């Protein structure tokens, strides 16, 4: 049941290489196959049995398998792929652009499907090459050089630590399979070091505070499709790694290192939200806000409380919907005016009313307004954090105050107020294509704001394993 998720991107890449002449055909083939794969995920959801505590369903040879958590991450990947492909329709790039996008999707699917630590590592790193080439070849400014360089070097340096850890675990346990690793009883001080290696590798991907520099750079320099993928999928690889390996495998160490994680995430939340207040580039602001939100999610994941952990996982999915929508909206602005600086924008409500409506909706989602999926996730997260530690809870509540400040400020600056002098006063609203890109995202994040149980019922049985 899970092999087709590997095969759809491969088929589409092969078709694109060998059977297409025009860019229209390329788009048609890639869209068709990505929508097939999305339909496949919906079928998986229908067949998924979430009433019993049967982990890793659709298990094939103990190599591939999914549980409730990874099912929703796979849904996120496959839901975003058609949107991302469609968003690059007008750009008339070459085949390489689409092939790189599809290969990123391939490796991201693979991360969530595979039940092997080495396989996880390979697919985790396999994203690097297409993403590097993507930023390097299709970036917009000269700054992309240092951005892509930072992106790849940070990740390599972190993941080599994970690499050593995997080999050490293999020598210790005799297998890198997920289920075998769970059954082994780890003893001694060495597991603390192993946990640290895991943690450093994954915290670079989140990113948490000392290693966060690459993310805003990469977001700013990559094209819209790239930043949507970065925010929507690539950041989730790190938190998925935390859920699967750090928390479930080494529960003792997670408990031991909880103060460290709390400190780092609190610093990350406050620092990045203050950074949002002082920046001009909209993409950079959204990137920093996504750092803050991901740190909040990580804070919730390590609370060792069922509500907190479920809230953290839910936060990841909801953040994937909302921040990718925001990046698409910024892409809309950039396509029209070729700038991302806030200073040039103002009073867009008169020329772009539908844009303003959608931007307002996403901003409300970003500040966790009741009725959006962001509200559910922050609500559950804060319940978990307050149950564990009131002091930390009070500190993390600063994000409730700080994130509306900058979000509403951006909203006000772009959409309302006096009309900007730098921009021609022409009616320039969203096209049908752009509206269709954004519509599913709006639908999903409002729908899951009202009916969160659809996701939570999948997640909850699996999240029980994360409690030590």
């Amino acid at each position, binding site marked *: 049941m899970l092999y087709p998720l590997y095969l759809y991107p491969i088929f589409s890449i092969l078709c694109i290489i060998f059977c297409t002449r025009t860019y229209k055909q390329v788009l048609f083939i890639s869209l068709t196959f990505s929508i097939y794969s999305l339909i496949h995920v919906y079928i998986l959801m229908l067949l998924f049995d979430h009433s019993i505590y049967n982990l890793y369903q659709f298990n094939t040879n103990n190599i591939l398998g999914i549980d409730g958590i990874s099912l929703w991450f796979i849904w996120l990947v496959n839901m975003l792929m058609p949107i991302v492909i469609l968003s690059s329709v007008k750009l008339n790039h070459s085949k390489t652009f689409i092939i790189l996008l599809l290969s990123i999707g391939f490796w991201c699917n693979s991360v969530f499907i595979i039940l092997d630590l080495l396989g996880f590592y390979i697919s985790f790193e396999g994203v690097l*090459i297409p993403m590097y080439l993507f930023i*390097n070849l299709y970036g917009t400014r000269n700054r992309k050089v240092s951005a892509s360089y930072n992106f790849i070097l940070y990740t390599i*340096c972190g993941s*080599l*630590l994970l*690499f*050593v850890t995997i*080999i050490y675990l293999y*020598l210790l346990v005799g297998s890198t399979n997920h289920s075998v690793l769970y059954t082994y009883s780890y003893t001694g001080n060495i597991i603390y070091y192993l946990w640290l290696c895991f943690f450093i590798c994954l915290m670079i991907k989140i990113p948490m505070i000392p290693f966060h520099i690459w993310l805003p750079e990469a977001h700013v320099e990559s094209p819209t499709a790239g930043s949507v993928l970065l925010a929507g999928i690539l950041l989730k690889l790190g938190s998925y790694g935390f859920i699967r390996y750090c928390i479930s495998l080494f529960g003792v160490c997670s408990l031991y290192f909880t103060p460290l994680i709390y400190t780092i995430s609190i610093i990350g939340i406050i620092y990045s939200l203050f950074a949002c207040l002082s920046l001009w580039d909209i993409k950079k602001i959204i990137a920093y806000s996504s750092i803050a939100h991901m740190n909040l999610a990580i804070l919730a994941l390590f609370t060792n409380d069922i509500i907190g952990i479920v809230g953290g996982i839910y936060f990841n999915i909801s953040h994937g919907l909302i921040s990718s929508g925001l990046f698409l909206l910024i892409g809309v602005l950039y396509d029209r005016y070729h700038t991302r600086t806030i200073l040039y924008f103002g009073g867009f409500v008169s020329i772009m009313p539908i844009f303003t409506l959608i931007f307002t909706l996403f901003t409300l989602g970003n500040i966790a307004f009741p009725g959006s999926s962001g509200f559910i996730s922050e609500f559950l997260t804060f319940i978990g954090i307050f149950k564990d530690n009131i002091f930390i809870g009070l500190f993390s509540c600063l994000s409730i105050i700080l994130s509306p400040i900058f979000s509403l400020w951006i909203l006000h600056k772009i959409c309302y107020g006096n009309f900007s002098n730098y921009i021609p006063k022409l009616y320039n609203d969203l096209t049908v294509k752009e509206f269709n890109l954004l519509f599913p995202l709006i639908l999903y994040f409002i729908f899951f704001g009202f009916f969160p149980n659809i996701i939570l019922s999948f997640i909850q049985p699996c999240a029980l394993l994360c409690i030590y």
Partner: protein
Amino acid sequence: MIAIYGLIISIYGIFLILPQQLYNNYLSNKVEHIRKLTILLYVFYFLYLCKFLYMYNIQYGDIYYFDGLCKINIRVIYIELTLLIICLLIFITCNMGAKSEIYLIYICNMIGYTFLLNSNDMLLIFVSWELFNYTLYLLTNIYTHKQNLISSGIKYFLLSSFTTTLFGAGICYLYGITGSINLSNIYIFICYTLNNPMYVYTTYHLYACFVLIFIGLLFKIAISPFHNWAPQLYDALPTNITIYMITIPKTVVLSFICLNISYIYYNIYYVILFVSILSIIVGCFSLGHVWKIKRFLAYSSIAHVGFILPILPDINLYMYYIYIYLILTLNIFFIIYAISPNISYISSINGLYQNNFVLYLCLSFTMFSLAGIPPLAGFYAKYFAIYSYLSHYSYLLTIVAIIGSMVSAGYYISIIYNISLKKNYVYPRYHIKISNISSYVISILSTINIFFILFHDTLFYILYIIFYI
């Protein structure tokens, strides 16, 4: 076997001595003709060696001795076949220029390393080692049009002959201790005396003479304390000879150590550790201070040899690593040679993205592979190397290897940045066309590199069957 070599060489020599006028009647280009003949000779020798694979007795790792001098073994045959394939690839892809004598040197070199790998006698080893060395000296000194080339060639000759004397001294020393020049007898003697409390002094003497032998051998593969000749020489030589010099001697010497004297390895493991850590550090940290592409690859090869050296006792891991190393190195050199035979600076391949997109992709994927990014071939090499270090509990080496690969990854990726974004001032913006044969070779090697994940376990299994059992 020896008779066949003699016959081939004499026929070949007669062919070479014939005056130029005689050729002009039949053939317009003497060098091209000799190149084709050499390729044919190598193919025949390849087929002749393949005959051994079907001999029932030689399979399953049995060793056959001829008069105590030569031995034949399935491992040696596979290594020789690998070397022949590399030579054939080099001869097919690269045109060797105007000198026709160079092919005779190559053939003599082939004979040298064949005897080196096959011999079971220290004296024969020394003689074939000398033949192997002489031909390499000739190869490095045959072109004398640059002062840089002459000085580095002479340097290589002097230093190499000095270390060869150390190698000879080591052999004499070994004869003095054991009283035998036969490798099998020496092995029996060492098994009996080494770490035996009754023979403490003999053990120390044995360590000393093996260190002497190792100095002679390790000089040839440019391990770190003896690496100074390598970057200069590789840089100065024409690209087609550099390809030969960077692949064949390393493979031969490493295979020789692996096959014949790896039983002493864990007794002098600290020397090996020191040497390989030093060369990983030198190789990885010098990559940033280099402007010339061949110098860059020379330092990269020093680092790779540092990675390989500690895993030599595990023969299948070693073969796995060396195959991947050879694929990547040959691919890079063929790409560079295809762009232009006279390339020297890294800046002259800048902006390859505009000149030839497919070639750019091949080169960048090879660089990613050298940097050790997972789905590519280089990752698996690194994986098994570090697996071997950790399974022998050498944690210091692991840490150094990890730091080295972090640092070197940055420099490899900076090359990708150069070829994708920088502007090229040396060659203006035009479409680089490469010949058919080199495009085939490059595409095959790149395909192996990119899709290595599909058959990495199959390759491992095959190597396990061939070399380990």
